């Protein structure tokens, strides 16, 4: 996905939207961590006032978190609207351009009506719009405008879900609201990536080597030619150059699968975490790394009743249940699996591409995030679910998911081998032939 040329201001807007979404996730995390999601009992108004006219002097206690969350959400919605409209206008001409832009701003105007049936109607349309946009996006892979529409529909759905959770008093809606928030964050991070100079190809995070063997997924002919390349060669020092050779399709594909699979594991973990948090029962297991003093806790009715009786809760007063204890244990086990999977990704990338390669650095950073997440998870338990620690755990979880998604996207685009300093084309071809045999020299591309 690249679109018609790079616009740094568009990229900055996308980046701002991603950062604002991260802040929104943090404030939303604080709302749930403090247990004040219903501190403002009405929506879209705030204690009967227009939310923009609700005086700051009344932002007391839990109202501060919930009202700030709503205001920040409105800001993110506005940024997403501008981003979607900009992407649309940028990639279309004449009739479709103005029709699309008008529809976007019409929907924005309808959101200003502060009418619940209108909101529910728009939210009901959102999944349809997302479905149609996904279809169009895969038909036009170079285009970004359909991803902008998806983000726009998603942010409307997310806002309405949050509001309905308040007026309908349904904890289950809070779970969907939390999960969609994470997915939306991944989407806006991806948009920030796609609008970046780096992705557009006009620059690079690493200096582009003069000698490279590029595997590009777009060309089927190149793919089939690459299959015939020798499967594995040791790194070779030839005339001052280090050439690492591999069977690109097999090994890159394996790494892509690993990255994507690990990202899905993290998504599953976030779904588990959201389910736990939005049952508002506090810590189902008050100790770590043991669980009620054991490796696996007793979850018979008598034991669970005893846990509830011994629990001295201050803010979370929903009783804990056997299923919640089960969820917490699943969350802990999955954390270990994720840590192992991300470590494997980092090791695989480093082994295949060397430590200086972009993917090696990113996967190592990803591993650092996951390790921080494990520490925060333990700290959440040890601090008896202190609101700031629990919220940091949510935020780092979101960053971990977004990092995995970005890695999966980056790895699917193509990979560049590490090479030496600028080389002569003839020398490059000779090196390629030495490494891969005569058939490979015709497909090596020099950059």
């Amino acid at each position, binding site marked *: 996905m690249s679109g018609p040329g790079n616009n740094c201001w568009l990229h900055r807007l996308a980046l701002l939207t991603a950062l604002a979404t991260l802040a929104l996730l943090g404030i939303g995390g604080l709302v749930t961590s403090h*247990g004040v999601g*219903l501190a403002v*009992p009405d929506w879209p108004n705030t204690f009967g006032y227009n939310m923009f006219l609700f005086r700051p002097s009344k932002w007391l206690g839990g109202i501060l978190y919930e009202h700030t969350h709503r205001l920040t959400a409105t800001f993110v919605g506005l940024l997403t609207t501008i981003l979607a409209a900009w992407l649309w206008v940028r990639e279309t001409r004449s009739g479709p351009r103005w029709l699309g832009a008008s529809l976007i701003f019409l929907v924005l105007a309808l959101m200003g009506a502060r009418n619940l049936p209108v909101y529910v109607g728009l939210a009901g349309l959102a999944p349809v719009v997302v479905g149609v946009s996904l279809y169009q996006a895969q038909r036009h892979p170079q285009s970004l405008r359909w991803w902008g529409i998806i983000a726009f529909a998603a942010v409307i759905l997310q806002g309405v879900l949050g509001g309905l959770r308040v007026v309908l008093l349904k904890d289950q809606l809070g779970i969907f609201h939390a999960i969609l928030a994470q997915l939306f964050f991944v989407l806006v991070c991806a948009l920030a990536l796609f609008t970046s100079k780096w992705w557009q190809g006009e620059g690079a995070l690493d200096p582009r080597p003069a000698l490279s063997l590029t595997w590009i997924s777009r060309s089927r002919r190149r793919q089939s030619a690459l299959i015939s390349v020798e499967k594995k060669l040791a790194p070779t020092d030839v005339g001052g150059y280090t050439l690492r050779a591999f069977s690109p399709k097999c090994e890159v594909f394996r790494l892509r699968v690993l990255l994507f699979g690990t990202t899905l594991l993290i998504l599953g973990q976030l779904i588990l975490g959201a389910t736990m948090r939005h049952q508002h029962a506090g810590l189902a297991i008050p100790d770590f790394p043991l669980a009620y003093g054991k490796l696996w806790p007793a979850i018979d009715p008598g034991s669970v009743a005893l846990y509830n009786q011994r629990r*001295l809760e201050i803010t979370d007063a929903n009783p804990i249940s056997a299923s919640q204890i089960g969820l917490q244990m699943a969350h802990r086990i999955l954390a270990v699996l994720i840590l192992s999977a991300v470590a494997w990704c980092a090791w695989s990338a480093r082994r295949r591409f060397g430590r200086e390669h972009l993917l090696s650095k990113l996967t190592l950073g990803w591993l650092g995030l996951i390790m921080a997440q494990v520490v925060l998870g333990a700290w959440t338990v040890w601090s008896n679910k202190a609101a700031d620690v629990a919220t940091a755990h949510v935020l780092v979880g979101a960053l971990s998911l977004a990092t995995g998604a970005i890695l999966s996207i980056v790895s699917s685009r193509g990979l560049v081998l590490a090479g030496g300093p600028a080389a002569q084309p003839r020398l490059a071809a000779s090196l390629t032939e030495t490494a891969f045999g005569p058939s490979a020299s015709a497909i090596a591309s020099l950059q």
Partner: protein
Amino acid sequence: MKKTSTLIVVVGLVAALQATHASDITGTVTLKGTPPAEKEITPLKDDPNCGKLHTTVPTTHFYVVGPKGELADVVISLNGISGQSTGASAPPVNLDQKGCEYLPPIQAVQTGQKILVKNSDPVLHNVHTLPAVAGNDEKNQAQAPNGPELPFVFSKPENFLKFKCDVHPWMFAWISVFDHPYFAVSGKDGTFKIANVPPGKYTLQAAHRKAGTATQQIEVKAGETAKLDFTLEAK
């Protein structure tokens, strides 16, 4: 006509006789063992508006125990009785929000009996009921400082139905709802009294949120006060 009026007189006499011979059940609840230390409600202390309503740091009240082990906030009720609620005609029960705490934290009412929630604080609260029994409605209503009382009525029996404030998430009250009038809540001295219990054999239950539940059999004889003590164990 004559037979009808005779029947009415007889029924009235029987009711009067029963009332005359209705008895009380009294007793004391004590706690065995050492309860865990109460926790300081630090979010209340740290709240800029609620913190200044207290001169000392408020604590939780999981176990309110007297010097000789007398246990307060125990809900004592007769088991196995239903459909005898007089809640509709009973006087309303008051629940106050004072010092950013619900007072009293433990109460008991009948189905159909009105609960009037008052806000005596200079800050806004919202009253959020969280029933677990289908048929009792969940509500979340804002209540301005010294604003009008909010009425709540529940139609189904439920143990320890929760009230909370979402603006101040440490605020909780629990109200048990019964389908009959034979219940009481033990006071700070651990004593309780259930009045006007018709003669008969019953199962009496004592329930505490943390110390658990205990039941005993009791026989109430006409004109005699039945006495039964309970001992609950700290968990």
